[in-house]
């Protein structure tokens, strides 16, 4: 071996002299310098071989190759996996290391014919070895992944993911009891509550073996093959993991045509898959990749991108399709879920896709996330239009609560549960709100409160339009009052209250009172008028007559009003009581006063009881029957 080393050294020196020397004299000078430098480079030894075209160095190279050939051919021919036996695998690796070193050392002299011929042989040997390496690499990857079937045991409950499987556990126990081969220990995770874990996708013994192979393949210039096998296997694994989570591959067209209920389920699955992918699978792949290609960061980055690209695009395409989909308001909540999922995953996108190759994927994610924000604003725009255009078809019986009020208020309340997200979305752009609306409210209010106030305004004007359908203007007021009351109540006890502000609530409570006052005025002023007493004609004969007319008129009007208004609705119990009390307070004193006076008129005398159809108590009871709904007594106590 020592002799071999010296021969190699001499050969290198000769080669340097030959290459650097532009003519024989120069080459000779260089050799002289070498011989002065070190005794091993004596002029005899060097010059002798300058002439000799078959240097003894090459013979040594041949001997080395013969020996390597024997070893390597033996391994290449083995018909079972070499890495099944650690002695075999390390001997094989050693042989390859020597082959690599030999080629590296002799390559500078390849221009010499005999060395060149040897190197061709070495390359040939290397190629055979590398094919075998590739196969070994692949089967290690596949076996490792099989033993690691991520979701075999529980793909039905993806959210409750654990990574154990029974047979593996048994194997493990056996190994652990022996206290040996901890490398093959499979990490067992508890059912998943948060995603803050990274799994070792392959047993660490396998990872080490893969790294050893990768190192040699890179050194031998077979990086591309290695990376290709690696990416293909891992990509397959990832795709299988994702499809086990039930996520289909869907085109945008298919997403658009899918019934919403099905799509909702798909979104649920997507959210789980996206979280799992970005929080566990991708970081785990990243770690695996960095370990297998340790020391070759560029190869690691490229392979990682190849592994994750398809899955990432699959995931992003779905979110993209959702963002392009229908703007129907019912979709808001699920679209918000998708938006929030992507938003919350942005740090993961940033960290896991930080390298140059993956940057595209990260930027795609940002674009689609922003686009989902646009979709949400589009949904609100659609909501506005639906409110605005909702036609006044049939009047709600009894001036009660209109379905649109109920729908919009409950919708907004539900939406406000995602207040933070919506604020973020509306701050991005003020699209959909006319600029003058923004100016109205000063700079202190957020885009979201402006948006909400705007929708409330649209709702109110739509309700006003709808109220016109009632021919009775009192009923019109009751309708507005009912709906206004509902709106204020729903605002008060939710996030909407703080968004719209106390001023808004005060203003609208006042409006409700005004509608109630309007109702009283319209319904009861005329009746109150019939009870008015003429002071100046008190004693005259005509007075009795007029009083008689008045009571008759009151009777019929009161009866009529009660008959009609008992079918009217005031949905809010408190408001209903308040209104009855208000009517009672308005009417009863005047009525008492009237019938008191009426009974005192002598001309009427005993006829009084006949003419007075309602006692004061009767009137009160009648008023109590107001606003009980269409069938009159349905809701009465």
């Amino acid at each position, binding site marked *: 071996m020592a002799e071999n080393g010296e021969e190699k050294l001499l050969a290198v020196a000769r080669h340097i002299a030959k290459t650097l020397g532009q003519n024989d004299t120069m080459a000779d000078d260089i050799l002289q310098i070498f011989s002065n430098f070190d005794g091993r480079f004596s002029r005899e030894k060097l010059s002798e071989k300058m002439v000799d075209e078959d240097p003894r160095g090459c013979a040594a190279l041949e001997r080395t190759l013969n020996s390597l050939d024997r070893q390597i051919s033996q391994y290449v021919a*083995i018909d079972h996996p070499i890495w099944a036996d650690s002695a075999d695998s390390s001997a094989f690796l050693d042989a390859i290391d020597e082959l690599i070193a030999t080629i590296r050392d002799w390559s500078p002299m390849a221009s010499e014919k005999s060395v060149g011929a040897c190197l*061709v042989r070495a390359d040939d040997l290397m190629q055979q070895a590398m*094919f075998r390496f590739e196969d070994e690499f692949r089967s290690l990857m596949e076996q490792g992944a099989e033993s690691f079937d991520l979701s075999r045991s529980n793909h039905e409950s993806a959210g409750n993911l654990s990574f154990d499987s029974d047979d593996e556990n048994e194997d493990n126990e056996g190994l652990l009891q022996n206290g040996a081969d901890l490398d093959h220990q499979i990490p067992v995770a508890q059912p998943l509550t948060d995603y803050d874990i990274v799994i070792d996708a392959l047993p660490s013994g396998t990872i080490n073996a893969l790294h050893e192979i990768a190192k040699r393949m890179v050194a031998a210039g077979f990086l*591309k093959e290695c990376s290709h096998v690696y990416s293909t*296997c891992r990509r*397959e694994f990832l795709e299988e993991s994702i499809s086990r989570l039930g996520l289909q591959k869907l085109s945008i067209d298919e997403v658009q045509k899918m019934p919403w209920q099905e799509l909702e389920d798909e979104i649920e699955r997507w959210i789980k898959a996206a979280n799992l992918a970005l929080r566990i699978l991708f970081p785990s792949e990243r770690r695996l990749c960095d370990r297998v290609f340790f020391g070759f960061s560029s190869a690691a980055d490229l392979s990682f991108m190849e592994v994750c690209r398809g899955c990432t695009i699959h995931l992003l395409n779905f979110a993209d399709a959702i963002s392009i989909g229908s703007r129907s308001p019912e979709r808001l909540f699920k679209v918000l879920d998708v938006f929030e999922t992507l938003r919350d995953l942005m740090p993961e996108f940033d960290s896991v896709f930080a390298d140059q190759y993956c940057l595209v994927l990260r930027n795609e994610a940002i674009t689609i996330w922003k686009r989902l924000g646009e979709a949400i604003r589009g949904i609100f725009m659609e909501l506005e239009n639906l409110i605005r255009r909702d036609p006044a078809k049939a009047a709600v019986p009894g001036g009660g609560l209109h379905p649109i009020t109920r729908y919009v208020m409950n919708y907004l309340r539900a939406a406000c549960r995602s207040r933070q997200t919506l604020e973020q979305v509306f701050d991005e752009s003020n699209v959909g709100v006319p600029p003058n609306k923004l100016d109205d409210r000063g700079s202190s209010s957020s885009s979201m409160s402006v948006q909400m106030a705007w929708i409330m305004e649209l709702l109110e004007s739509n309700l006003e339009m709808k109220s016109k359908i009632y021919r009775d203007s009192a009923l019109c007021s009751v309708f507005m009052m009912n709906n206004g009351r509902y709106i204020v109540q729903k605002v008060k006890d939710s996030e909407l209250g703080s968004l719209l502000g106390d001023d808004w609530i005060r203003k609208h409570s006042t409006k409700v009172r005004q509608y109630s006052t309007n109702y009283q005025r319209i319904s009861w002023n005329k009746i109150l008028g019939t009870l008015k007493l003429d002071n100046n004609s008190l004693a005259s004969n005509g007075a009795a007559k007029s009083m008689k007319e008045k009571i008759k008129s009151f009777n019929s009007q009161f009866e009529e009003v009660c008959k009609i208004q008992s079918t009217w609705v005031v949905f809010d119990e408190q408001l209903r009581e308040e209104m009855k009390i208000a009517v009672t307070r308005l009417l009863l004193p005047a009525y008492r006063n009237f019938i008191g006076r009426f009974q005192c008129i002598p001309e009427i005398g005993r006829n009084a009881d006949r003419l007075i159809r309602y006692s004061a108590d009767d009137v009160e009871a009648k008023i109590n029957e107001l606003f009980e709904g269409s069938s009159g007594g349905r809701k009465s106590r």
Partner: protein
Amino acid sequence: MPATDYQGSSAPLTNLGRSLLSLRRDQVHAMESHHDGSSAASLEVELESFQRQVADRFHDLSSVPSDELLSLPWVRKLLDVFLVCQEEFRVILSNNRAQVNRPPMDRLVADFYERSVKALDVCNAIRDGIEQIRQWEKLLEIVLCALGDTSNVNNNSNTNINNGNCYQRTLGEGQFRRAKKALIDLAIGMLDEKDSGQALAHRNRSFGRNNNSGSHSRDHHHRSLGHFRSLSWSVSRSWSAARQLQAIGNNLTAPRGNEVVASNGLAMPVFTMGCVLLFVMWALVAAIPCQDRGLQVHFYIPRQFSWAAPILSLHEKILEESKKRDRKNACGLLREIYQMEKCSRLLGELADSVQFPLNEEKEAEVRQRVKELGHVCEAMKEGLEPLEKQVREVFHRIVRSRTEGLDSLGRHNAE
């Protein structure tokens, strides 16, 4: 400017587009005399200029030498044309919002948006296809790595033992085996899905012998190759580019006279853009591999449109290309794919025929083929990434312009 010579030829007033426009002009003056005459005239100018620009651009595309048609640079130019047309179209719509939001334009524009959404799936499929080509390019790089001069091999890793040597390595059996393996993988990769099973079996037969590691690894290889083929598609198995193209072209007909009149002529650019969209998507599907390619889409374009001639001529040329014997079963008509296929096939045949040690003549031939392959590889490396970006840009632009349209319609309804 190539535009000038054919403009004259399309000038006759039998031109449908032109006659419809002038018909409209009369109507506009008759019906909307209260409108500002100058704005009506400027709309006219805008619309006519759009028609002319579209015609110019497609004429430009169609007047390339036949060996540039369907090349990577040509496809990129095609997408540039699409982007510019789309932008001009967008501007026209946004300049004439009031009109656009009224019938019949609201319906025509909604139809166009629906069409354009369908094009998004094509964009996604094409992106997958580009990725597929990139995978083939990787196999080519292995071939170059095996048979190329070391100076040609651009290996990132500086631990490569052969790095730093500028000598011409002698080509040995080992390098050929390595290259052949990559070439066969490439050939299988480039086959249409339906033929791949058979070829895979063949491949495994020929490599089963070389590879002594027993049957288990062959099975594995089979499996992974199968996946290698299907992995890149991000759409479902049942998705079909041919059907998608048909959906884009569905009911795409020239506007009727009354529609042109009622829309102040704006129905014309909508139809124009619909045709541009359909043609561009069709050409992409023709050029780039994707799932269930099929070019049986009919273009019903009245010849009177000034851009009809160049588009129909391109359509014809591309169809002819697809019918050529050696392209019939191609997975994409992209010129670089063709060259890649040809070069790699020739090199494969050469590799099968060589005897070792290689004589000088053979070696020179191999080096020549490898050099050609290197050029193809280089062209792919330079062109694919920008193409992918462009396809993505087309996607984003379509979405953006549709969103803008929907928003405007939404706001219009608010008024």
